[in-house]
């Protein structure tokens, strides 16, 4: 680890100014990923701007419905929040499916979105990786890639995004609030993370010095059916091989509202827009659900050793959606 400066910010403006005033600055919140990457030699910030104590640690209901989640709200607190558990169970379940109890106590909402891939080639500076060091190639493509992407990957990168929380946020249609030199802006979670293309070094659309200040959830009535299901190599404390987040509201026998996203399959949480379009307005029968899921996963381009992820994701999605549809899914 290289020597590093440290500044504790007391306001969003102060954080932005400190970031702008220090070469190689990085924001530090929980640090569960950043500190680890510093130890691995993947990250070498010049200065850490500590934003963990900014007054962004509250979850507030919005007047028009919905929730505003401050960027420094801890993952454990968000998962346990009564309003989240009542109206957004998919988010609570996704958070609880990630990491461990002690990590969730440290990790923040903003940091969770910005965590880097756990691709072992990315995490080892001795190996080639276009994401860590553009132009060095991808070690995973012809190497070990059982855990890697089956959707939306590029010749330069086949990494997956590791977050569970972000998958739930994508299915819910949440937005990210950012503060930068040019003021504030919002970006839908589904567009916040990028596909790798020719620039896998850019995980997200966040600009230099921009700071996540909040995540906003759209209105959801208490009891809106939603769920998260994750398949992994261990029963607990492992990243997803594949996961599904879904919101499904059925009225008068047809799907009135639907949001579906996959985790563990792509460089970003994969919003399943084709599957959503196929289900919206349709009867949520097992057959229709299967057809909708296939419409999405037919686009998959598995690699040599990860084709198993496609049927795994298909079965997860069918099961989650069938469960949410309840009796309407039965023939």
């Amino acid at each position: 680890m290289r020597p590093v400066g440290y500044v504790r910010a007391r306001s969003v403006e102060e954080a932005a100014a400190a970031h702008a005033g220090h070469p190689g600055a990085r924001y530090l919140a929980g640090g569960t990923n950043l500190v680890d990457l510093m130890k691995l030699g993947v990250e070498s910030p010049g200065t850490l701007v500590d934003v963990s104590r900014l007054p962004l640690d509250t979850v507030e209901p919005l007047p028009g419905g919905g929730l505003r989640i401050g960027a420094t709200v801890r993952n454990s607190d968000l998962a346990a929040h009564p309003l989240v558990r009542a109206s957004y169970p998919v988010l609570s379940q996704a958070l609880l499916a990630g990491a461990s109890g002690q990590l969730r106590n440290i990790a923040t909402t903003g940091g969770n979105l910005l965590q880097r891939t756990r691709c072992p080639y990315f995490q080892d500076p001795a190996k080639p990786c276009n994401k860590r060091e553009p132009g060095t190639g991808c070690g995973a493509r012809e190497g070990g890639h059982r855990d890697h992407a089956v959707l939306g990957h590029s010749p330069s990168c086949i990494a997956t995004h590791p977050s569970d929380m972000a998958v739930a946020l994508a299915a819910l249609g949440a937005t990210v609030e950012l503060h930068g030199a040019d003021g504030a802006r919002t970006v839908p979670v589904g567009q916040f993370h990028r596909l790798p293309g020719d620039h896998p070094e850019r995980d997200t659309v966040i600009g230099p010095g921009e700071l996540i200040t909040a995540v906003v959830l759209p209105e959801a009535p208490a009891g809106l059916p939603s769920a998260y299901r994750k398949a992994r190599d261990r029963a607990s404390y492992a990243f997803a091989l594949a996961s599904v987040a879904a919101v499904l509201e059925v009225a008068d026998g047809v799907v009135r509202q639907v949001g579906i996203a996959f985790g563990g399959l792509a460089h970003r949480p994969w919003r399943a827009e084709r599957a959503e379009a196929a289900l919206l307005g349709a009867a949520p029968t097992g057959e229709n659900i299967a057809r909708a899921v296939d419409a999405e996963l037919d686009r998959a381009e598995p690699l040599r050793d990860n084709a198993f992820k496609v049927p795994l994701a298909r079965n997860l999605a069918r099961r989650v959606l069938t469960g949410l549809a309840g009796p309407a899914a039965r023939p």
Partner: protein
Amino acid sequence: MQHTATGTEPVTTASGVTLRVNGTAHTLDVDHRTTLLDALRERLGLTGAKKGCDHGQCGACTVLVDGRRANSCLLLAVAQDGTEITTVEGLAGDAGDGELHPLQRAFLDRDAFQCGYCTPGQLCSAVGLLAEAAAGHPSYVTPPDTGSPDGPASPGGPAGLTPAEIRERLSGNLCRCGAYPRIVEAVADTAAEAAR
């Protein structure tokens, strides 16, 4: 104090920090790279918290920060200024009468260890687990709420700490000796005692 010349002016790479550990304040200069775990072990002589993987994967370094369990290997000491830290050395009665924490007693009664390397982390993690459960925090295996108007039920309370709940909630603490069955029993004993 070290300096680097990454910009037009030198960046200070060490700072004074006051760490409150087990009720005692310690003021020390730390290189900003110093983790809380290294500060505890190398600077304060508190070697209870263990360095296993040093990457947040094994839980041997678990301590309590403001009463919540956390991996001390991933926390920078400089960022902990003003927090209250409790290590395994601070769990027993502070009157110096050797009174063990109920979890420590339960670990002894159940023989919930073999080599003991993971035990300080298991104990601190279990203290945090019991507090989280008492506060009604759910886990991944807690049945989802039904969305009743009265708000979510709190099935994670002490009485709801089934073996499956304890296993899920302690999954961030590895035990390479495989003492898990006894660890679960020790935590279940303590939870049952607390609920009585």
